């Protein structure tokens, strides 16, 4: 019974290949966009998670403001170098503390210029970031203390400014000031968040504060906890220390954040997951539109095929057999459109992964859901036209012109 219905439906679809294709085009595009959005979104989420995990679990980031995140830095006072020194002094489990301040600006050498991130920190910064020097040297203590005009540059900056020349001992210009290049960082490539880690100019923090930002602010304190020590305890201790240093009354909330990598990862993946969901929802709307397209064409097709339905009924087709035929037609159409869309979406994700720099994460669940959803779209939107066909009066239908 089912095979017969399937056979009838398939013959019907084959009769109208072009129209069938156009009918399901909406579904194809809808499913393809859902699959692409979600696959890329999953890739981005995974990438953020691994990139944060690669920082190590023993890293704490102390930032001013109530919550770290896009658009919610808050107006809390910034940290000072002394805060970092206090952590290094008071928190026994902290092995390294790097105060960080940064800003994007253009670095200029000769007639070349490169817009990059200028970061002021200490030489501990390199250790914390697992960076090593390719050539040259890091800041000396006296340079750090004095805020000397020296810079360590990343590979990307070197390439843009110097081409194949050796940058060491050349002087680059940041704003109105010139800095001597003393070191070149070993290339690290992009981190998995898609950020070029080599696009950096590192200055002594004091030099950055005096000559670039013009204030004593530190935007972040990075703290590395000694191996084997509890990060939770360190987190608690740093929090108490900072509350104390910022003279917060017991009733006041923290105006800073001490986050370990797990929390950061949760927050960032939360954001990407939400974005993925949103994009997925937008794409799902196009699936719905595709379904309406199917209903539209099916209704037209029922009218156009009235005589055919009449013939089938006269030949002895039961009402429910006609209903099933049209329903199966709609479901076969929409689910094959879904299948096609899945392939297209996966193909697009593969093609786009190098453009948007996220890994390709195959998610069988979403593929399954997209397929079932497209089949369901055919079922739902095919039912009404199918019912219309099945309820036709054979005599009227045969007379239909």
């Amino acid at each position, binding site marked *: 019974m089912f095979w*017969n219905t399937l056979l009838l439906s398939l013959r019907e679809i084959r009769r*109208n290949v072009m129209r069938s294709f156009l009918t399901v085009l909406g579904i194809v595009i809808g499913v393809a966009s859902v699959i692409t959005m979600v696959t890329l979104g999953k890739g981005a989420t995974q990438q953020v998670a691994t990139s944060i995990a690669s920082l190590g679990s023993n890293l704490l980031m102390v930032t001013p403001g109530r919550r770290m995140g896009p658009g919610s830095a808050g107006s809390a006072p910034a940290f000072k170098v002394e805060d970092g020194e206090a952590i290094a002094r008071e928190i026994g489990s902290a092995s390294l503390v790097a105060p960080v301040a940064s800003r994007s600006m253009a670095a200029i050498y000769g007639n070349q210029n490169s817009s990059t991130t200028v970061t002021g920190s200490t030489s501990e910064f390199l250790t914390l970031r697992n960076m090593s020097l390719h050539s040259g040297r890091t800041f000396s203590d006296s340079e750090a203390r004095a805020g000397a005009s020296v810079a360590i540059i990343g590979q990307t900056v070197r390439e843009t400014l110097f081409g194949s020349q050796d940058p060491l001992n050349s002087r680059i210009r940041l704003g109105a000031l010139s800095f001597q290049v003393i070191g070149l960082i070993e290339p690290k490539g992009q981190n998995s968040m898609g950020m070029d880690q080599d696009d950096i100019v590192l200055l002594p923090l004091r030099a950055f504060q005096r000559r670039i930002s013009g204030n004593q602010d530190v935007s972040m304190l990075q703290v590395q906890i000694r191996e084997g020590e509890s990060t939770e305890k360190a987190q608690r201790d740093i929090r108490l220390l900072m509350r104390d240093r910022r003279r917060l009354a017991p009733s006041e909330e923290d105006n800073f954040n001490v986050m370990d990598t797990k929390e950061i990862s949760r927050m960032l993946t939360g954001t990407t997951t939400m974005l993925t969901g949103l994009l997925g929802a937008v794409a799902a709307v196009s699936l719905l539109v595709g379904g309406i397209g199917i209903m539209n064409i099916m209704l037209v097709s029922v009218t156009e095929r009235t005589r055919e339905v009449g013939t089938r009924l006269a030949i002895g087709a039961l009402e429910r057999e006609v209903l099933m035929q049209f329903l199966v037609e709609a479901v076969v159409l929409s689910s094959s459109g879904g299948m096609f869309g899945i392939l297209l979406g996966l193909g697009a994700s593969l093609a786009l992964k190098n453009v948007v720099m996220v890994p390709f994460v195959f998610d069988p669940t979403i593929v399954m859901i997209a397929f079932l959803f497209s089949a369901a779209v055919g079922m739902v939107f095919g039912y009404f036209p199918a019912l219309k066909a099945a309820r036709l009066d054979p005599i009227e239908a045969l007379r239909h012109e």
Partner: protein
Amino acid sequence: MIASTQESRAPLIELRGVTKVYGTGQAAMQALAGIDLRIEEGDFVAIMGHSGSGKSTCLNILGCLDSPTSGSYRFRDVEVSQLTRDQRARLRRYYLGFVFQGYNLLKRTSAIENVELPLIYRHVPARQRRQAARHALASVGLQDWESHNPNELSGGQQQRVAIARAIVTGPSVLMADEPTGNLDTARSEEIMELLCSLNRDQGITVVMVTHESDMAAYAKRIVRFKDGRIESDEQNGRAH
């Protein structure tokens, strides 16, 4: 002769006091005003009459496409007027074949697949289905046209495909509604010869509606309708 047949067994088709009214109240239109008609197995009946005489309504009722408003229609031992829509569909599926004026073949579907259609609804397995369809096409002289679509066939050929589709199931009765209405004289005669031979050689009862007396002349019996009643009902002198 009729009396003796009646005693030996029930007729294939028996209408008694069948009326059909379309619409209700003021708009009511009586298409059939009390029809009594018996058709024996193996007969070839031509139903004639002007348009509006009720002949098409009668054929629709005989073909179990429609139910009478009142009266009784017995097909073999089954009271058709009591059947549901699906039961009538099953009766059509297993006992009746239809040929229409406009052929009503499925477009963009090969002749053989058109002929297979009723067998699909009968759930005949694919191999047997193909075989039976081939055989039916051969019996209407179209063995070389199996893979042609209707638009590649002439009107006469299309009607022969339609006849093959109607007889592929080995029906008891073939209902033909103006089967030659769209054809020229030569093709019409071919079709009529075909119907006659099916009636003669395969014993298929044929009930045909026509308004052309040339075509009706091929039948064994001619029933004339006028204003929803049977005006005359006579055996046809033509020898088969």
